[in-house]
């Protein structure tokens, strides 16, 4: 059953790829043929935004309320539960960063072909680069702590602190009147109905395929993370066990005894 689903996903992705190359040209673009990169560019920031919000939600869950007094917001004492939410949070953030890099790469390519520069300091490009820097700092916080508990807590704190600036940079900043006037990047193509017909159907299909792929990768990352956590826990239990050797291990015996 699983193999059949994977095969169907592969076939559908192949068909969507071919379809994305055969949709009609959009005459409004300088290089209408190359404008098709939009079909692959658009789903990436959508998934990025959803994943960072889901990552922030998982980060909130790391800090469970255990006291109901006002202003008491203490970390949960159960390390296994904390680790599980942390693994989910980092899985979201890693995938979100992957989609952010894909957004940036496809955007830069589009910029070169349509506007003539790899980097044109367009407000959209600039604000998205700021977002990339913010999440690079999130990974810097995680790398700075070797203790898993502290890594989870401080990483989650930074992820929560980063939500507001990120939402501002993604949704508000590019739409501010003076900024929007300077930008070559369209801001309301979907809401104003400029994307329609075959283009719209194709972009929706690719968005669905990317979402399925993101869910699949997220599950793999979470399962791997939980397996690693279990393995480390088992190693720690064995280390704490003193002379008790696990079954099946032969210990050397001194000849003098």
């Amino acid at each position: 059953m699983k193999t059949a689903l994977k095969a169907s996903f592969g076939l559908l992705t192949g068909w969507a790829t071919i379809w994305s190359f055969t949709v009609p040209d959009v005459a409004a673009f300088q290089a209408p043929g190359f404008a098709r990169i939009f079909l692959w560019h658009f789903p990436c920031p959508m998934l990025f935004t959803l994943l960072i919000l889901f990552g922030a939600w998982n980060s909130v869950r790391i800090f469970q309320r255990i006291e109901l007094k006002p202003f008491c917001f203490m970390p949960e004492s159960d390390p296994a539960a904390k680790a599980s939410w942390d693994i989910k949070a980092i899985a979201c953030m890693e995938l979100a960063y992957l989609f952010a890099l894909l957004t940036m790469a496809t955007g830069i390519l589009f910029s070169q072909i349509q506007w003539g520069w790899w980097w044109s300091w367009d407000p959209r490009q600039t604000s998205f680069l700021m977002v990339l820097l913010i999440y690079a700092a999130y990974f810097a916080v995680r790398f700075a702590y070797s203790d898993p508990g502290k890594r989870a807590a401080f990483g989650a704190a930074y992820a929560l602190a980063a939500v507001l600036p990120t939402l501002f940079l993604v949704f508000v900043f590019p739409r501010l009147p003076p900024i929007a006037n300077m930008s070559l990047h369209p801001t309301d193509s979907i809401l104003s109905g400029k994307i329609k017909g075959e283009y719209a159907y194709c972009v929706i299909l690719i968005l669905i395929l990317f979402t399925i792929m993101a869910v699949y990768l997220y599950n793999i990352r979470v399962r791997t993370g939980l397996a690693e956590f279990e393995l480390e826990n088992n190693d720690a239990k064995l280390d704490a066990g003193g002379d008790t050797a696990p079954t099946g291990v032969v210990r050397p015996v001194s000849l003098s005894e």
Partner: protein
Amino acid sequence: MNSSWRVEILAIFRKEWRIEMRSLSGLVTAFLFSVVTVYAISFAALNTHIPPTVVSGMLWVALLFSAASSLTRTFLIEEELGTADLLRLVARPHAVFWGKALFNIFQCIVTSVLVTILFLGFTSTQVIIPWLFGVSLIAGCLSLAGAVTLCGAIASQASNRSMLAAAIAVPLLLPLVALGVSGMRVSLGEGSLSGGGSGAAIGLIGYAVATLATGPYIFAAVWKS
């Protein structure tokens, strides 16, 4: 505000004040860093008329880096001197955050005002809309102090804490710099209030409120980790 909260917050603020007054290290470092930056920028543009957008950009860069390098000290020094555990025992997390944030706000405003006066003098720039200039500067200082205090706490227990604190604070403050530059350039005579100046001022105030409102909760969650 409940009196016990006020007592705790003021006690933390007084502690920071006394430590600072013993050495004046934070104020002097921040001020020197900003003045040298301002002087270097002004010297680089010797006898050249600098447009308002560039002036506001340069001023914000100087303020950003001086805040990121000096305001993070308040938490880093607690871990370095080994007094953080004592602080965890005697005060509630929100009181610790507010006490330190208030001190950082005070330090940031003092440094910013002095640096701004010097910078405007060096570059012979006139302020056309003083209220907008003041709002940009004060709201910017509130946001800078709030965000940098939180980043200092997040980085305080890492091994490379000083570098990490500045490295994680700067990306979080980039949107603030964008808003600050938009507001300040209008106050210096480029652009109009309706064309983004008042929007930037509202954005800066909103950013400051959001940073100072969410900061204590995030800080409280990690303070006892």
